[in-house]
């Protein structure tokens, strides 16, 4: 099986043969290849609608990778979310999404960043 590693921008060309991985530049590439061959996972980044007109959307990400096959379902779920609290970077937006045991977290503290000249 031929794969392109997506762990880092080097984009190594990987070959998976049984449980043997070649072409990887680092250990993370080997782990990626083994997982990708059996059950591919991806991190998902997107935005969630908010109640605040200055920042109509809040950037979020899955705290860790989720099964690739679940991405569509996750997006459906995210479309139903609506943030009414002034969350900070790292705050949980939704717990245990799709029962995967993974949280959706904010990736920006837009509401608390200072916005004007400090004197």
């Amino acid at each position, binding site marked *: 099986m031929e794969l392109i*590693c997506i762990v*880092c921008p080097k*984009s190594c060309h990987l070959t998976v043969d049984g449980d043997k991985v070649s072409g990887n530049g680092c250990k993370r590439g080997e782990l990626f290849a083994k997982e990708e061959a059996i059950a591919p996972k991806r991190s998902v980044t997107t935005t969630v609608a908010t109640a605040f007109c200055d920042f109509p959307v809040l950037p*979020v990400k899955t705290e860790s990778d989720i099964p690739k096959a679940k991405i569509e379902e996750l997006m459906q779920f995210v479309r139903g979310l609506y943030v009414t609290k002034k969350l900070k970077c790292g705050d949980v937006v939704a717990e245990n999404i799709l029962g995967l045991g993974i949280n959706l977290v904010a*990736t*920006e503290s*837009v509401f608390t*960043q200072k*916005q004007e000249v400090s004197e």
Partner: protein
Amino acid sequence: MSRIFDVAVIGGGPAGLAAAVSASENGASVALIERESRLGGILKQCVHDGFGLIRFGQKLAGPEYAERYIELLKNTKTEVFLTTFVTAVKKADFGFSIAIVNKEGISHIDTKTIVLATGCRERTSKQVLIQGTRPSGVFTAGVAQNFVNLLGKMPTKKCVILGSGDIGLIMARRLTLEGAEVEGVYEVKPTPSGLTRNIHQCLFDFNIPLHLSTTVTRVFGEDRLNTVEVAQVDEKMKVVEGTERIIECDALILSVGLIPENEIAETLDVKINNATKGAECDQTYMTSVDGIFSAGNALNVFDLVDYVSESAQSAGASAADYQGTKREYIEIERGKGLLSFVPTRLDILGKLDKVILFFRAARDMDKAKLILKINGEIKLEKKFSYLRPPEMQRLELDLQNYGLDGSSKVLLTLEEGWN
């Protein structure tokens, strides 16, 4: 007497943030000037992850990466000017006087040195010559990204993407996730412009076709774009007759390249490099004008923000250390096989033991070898299993023991084939 800063950084994106933090940490008084109402630059709208693997050893989303630097900046005494536009920069006996406009009116910031961290701009439809009407619905990928990720508005239901630059690939995935149909990505060149991993994780993961050696030839639509025509091109980039195809869609998204933003640099007569389209610079990131430094995408369009930060960190430190000491330059000649590199020149009176070289290959190369020649003699060779133009390389060079002087000829070349 009005205050004179040691360093003024123009631009509050990743390069400006890193330059300001680094200049402050090196003891300089720093002014950071940003035209938008908050810091972070383009990272604010880059909600995807993959940033910071080198700098922080972690996969961060764009805003997270920016926030790390904003936090670092808060620990310094940098004076931040938000919603502030630079209208002109003039030389003065103490350094430079920067004319600014903000809500307090027109004023100026006086400084001994400047770091230009103005980033880059996207090529627009005017620069790629597409025939047809002029309907709305033609966006650059960055504008589409701004709509979706900052304003929460979808600019399209079904689109065609022209160009396979990284932002275009990222937007193909982003728009698909948000429910739009991306009919395909069209690239006029025979090879993709973006990183290989992005071709895979943004296009192939979502079954978005990539059409190489194919371009958009015409757009149709009165008020709003409703159709585009695509066609294949030959090796000379001429349209192959009979290959035209019509696609109904409501938007054409362009990801056709980035150009360093050097409007301010040009008014100061900073020399621009033909290959990078950014300023000529030495190993301390100083441009051809004494006291003016350049970093990040304004200097050279990097593909990793980590390298943007690294270049800006050096530029900030150099600006903080700047004493106006005498420099003597030799240009680095760009030989065969290289698309571009920085630094483009060396100050032979300055430090030469840790010169960070960033370079791109001119074409896809397997078993490539970077060769550094001084006065015709090979001094250094570095092997690479493969090189691709979209993937910038970074090398640390020790050039202090080569006896460089003002008459030395330094040549960099890339050759293919080694065993």
